C-alpha cells in the first residue's frame, strides 16, 4: 500500500473558513440563478439565444490577416499539443498565451468568458471529486480535513484537476482567435482546403443557417404554449407537452427538407455552394503557422524537460 510522504491535518478554523466561502459562493450563485429565472418569466421564453461565431470577423488583427487554412492548420494541432501537457505550470502559461491571443484578436473578452462559463459545471465536477477520489500515491502530500478522516484530500489529484481546468480554458479561449476571426464560410473553406470533404462542409453551413430558422420556430411555438397557460414543471404533463412540442418541431423540419432542397435546386444547386473569395496562402501565413507550431512544441518540450509542479 502506498504511503503518503506528508500528511497535513487542516485545522478546524481553516475548514470553517473554506466552508463559509463555499456557502457564500453557493448563496450568491442561487440568488443570481433566481434573479435570472425571474427575468426569464418576464421574457416569457427561456434564453435560447445562439451566439454568432463570426460577429467579429470584419475587424483586423494578427489573426484576422492570417489565411484561414493556414490558421486552422496550425492552431488545431496546437490544441492537441496543449492537451499533451502534464504540468500545471506550463498549462497556465498556455492559458496566458490564449488570453493574449483573444486580446490581440480584437474580440470582446466577454465571448471568452461565456465559453469558460459554459463548461464550468463539467470542470467543477473534476475539481470537487478528483482530489478526494484519486488513488493514493507513494510519497504524495495528503490533506486531512476534520470529520473527513476517511476521505483524504490528495494534492496530486487536485493538481491533476487543476491541469485539466487550465488546459480546457486555454483551448476554449483559442477557439475565438482560430474560428471567430474569419467569416464562417471562409473558415469552413479553410477546413475544406485542409482536406475535409465538401459534403460535410456543405452540411455544416446549411445546418448553421437553419438553426437560426428553427430557433425562431421554437420561440414562436413556446410563446403560443405560454399564452395557453403552459408552465414547465417536473411532472408527466410537462413531459407529454414537451414530447408533442418536439414531435411537432421534427415533423415541420422533415416537411421543410423537401421544400428547402427543391428551392436550392431551383437556384442552381448541384452539390456545392459557389465561393467568390479564394484566399491564397502566402509566405507570411506559413511563417505565422510555423511560429505557432514551434510555440506549441516549445511548451511541450519545456513541460517534459522542466516539469514545474509535476503530478
Amino acid at each position, binding site marked *: 500500500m502506498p504511503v503518503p510522504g506528508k500528511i497535513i491535518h487542516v485545522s478546524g478554523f481553516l475548514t470553517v473558513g473554506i466552508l463559509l466561502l463555499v456557502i457564500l459562493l453557493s448563496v450568491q450563485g442561487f440568488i443570481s440563478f433566481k434573479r435570472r429565472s425571474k427575468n426569464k418569466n418576464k421574457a416569457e421564453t*427561456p434564453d*435560447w439565444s*445562439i451566439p454568432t*461565431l463570426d460577429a467579429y470577423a470584419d475587424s483586423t488583427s494578427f489573426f484576422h490577416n492570417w489565411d484561414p487554412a493556414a490558421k486552422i492548420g496550425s492552431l*488545431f494541432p496546437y*490544441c492537441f499539443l496543449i*492537451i499533451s501537457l502534464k504540468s500545471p505550470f506550463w498549462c497556465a502559461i498556455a492559458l496566458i498565451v490564449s488570453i493574449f491571443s483573444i486580446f490581440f484578436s480584437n474580440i470582446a473578452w466577454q465571448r471568452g468568458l461565456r*465559453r469558460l462559463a*459554459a*463548461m464550468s459545471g*463539467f470542470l467543477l*465536477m473534476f475539481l470537487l*471529486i*478528483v482530489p*478526494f477520489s484519486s*488513488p493514493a500515491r507513494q510519497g504524495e502530500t495528503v490533506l486531512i480535513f476534520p470529520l473527513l478522516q476517511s476521505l483524504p484530500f490528495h494534492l496530486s*489529484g487536485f493538481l491533476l484537476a487543476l*491541469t*485539466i481546468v487550465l*488546459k*480546457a480554458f486555454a*483551448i*476554449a479561449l483559442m*477557439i475565438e482567435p482560430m*474560428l471567430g476571426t474569419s467569416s464562417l464560410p471562409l473558415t469552413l473553406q479553410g477546413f475544406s482546403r485542409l482536406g475535409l*470533404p465538401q*459534403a460535410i462542409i*456543405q*452540411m*455544416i453551413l*446549411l*445546418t*448553421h*443557417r*437553419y*438553426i437560426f*430558422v*428553427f430557433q425562431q*420556430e*421554437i420561440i414562436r411555438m413556446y410563446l403560443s404554449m405560454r399564452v395557453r397557460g403552459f408552465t*414547465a*414543471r*417536473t411532472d408527466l404533463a*410537462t*413531459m*407529454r407537452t*414537451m*414530447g408533442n412540442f*418536439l*414531435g*411537432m418541431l*421534427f*415533423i415541420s*423540419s*422533415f416537411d421543410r*427538407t423537401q421544400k*428547402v*432542397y427543391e428551392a*436550392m435546386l431551383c437556384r442552381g*444547386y448541384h452539390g456545392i455552394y459557389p465561393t467568390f473569395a479564394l484566399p491564397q496562402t502566402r509566405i507570411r501565413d506559413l511563417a505565422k503557422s510555423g511560429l505557432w507550431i514551434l510555440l506549441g512544441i516549445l511548451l511541450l518540450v519545456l513541460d517534459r524537460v522542466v516539469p514545474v509542479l509535476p503530478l
Partner: protein
Amino acid sequence: MHISDGVLSVTISVATYALTLAGTALSVKKVRDESLPKIAVVTSAFFVASLIHLPLGPTSVHLLMPGIVGALLGPAAFLSITVGLFLQSILFQFGGLTALGANAIMMGVPALTCGFLFKWIRGSSRMSNTLAGALVGGLGTIFAAVLLAVFLFTSGEDFLGVAKFALVAHIPVVIIEAAVSAFTISFIYRVKPEMLDWKNF
C-alpha cells in the same frame, strides 16, 4: 454531459477522432447525395431541440436525444450527430474541439444502435411504437452515460470517482429522456408515421 478539452488522454482523443472521421465517411457513403441537405435541415432541428431545458426539481436538464435521432434518421444518425456536436462545440463550447471525436462516438454509437433496435421492435401499433420510443430513449441515454464513464476511466484511474458520479447523475436524465421520447414518438406515429421508416434519406 459533453467532455471538455484536456480531460481525455491524447491517445484516446486522437483514436476517437480517427474513428469518428471513419464513421462519418461511412455515413456519408450510406446516404444518397441529395439527402445531405435534408439531413442538414433535420440536424438543425435536433440542435435547437437540445437547447430546450426541462425542469428537474430545483435544477434543469437538457435532452440528449440519441434514441430519437437514431429512430428518425437510422444510418444517417452518426453524421447528423457529428455535425451537430461540431457546431455545439464551436458556438457554445459544449464539448471541447479536441474531444469532438469522443463526444461524437458517445452520442453517435448509441443513436445508431437505438435506431436499429427501434426498427426491430417497434411493431405496428401505436402502443408498441410508444413503448419502443421509451425504451430507445432511455437505453440511448444509458449507453451514452456508460461510454462517457468508459472514456473517463480509460483516460486515467484518477477519474474513477468522476466516472461513477457521471453515471449516477444520468439516472434522472434517463427517466425524463424515456418519457419525452415515448411522447415524441407517439405524436409522430399519429401525425406522420412515414417519418419512422427512414425513407426520406
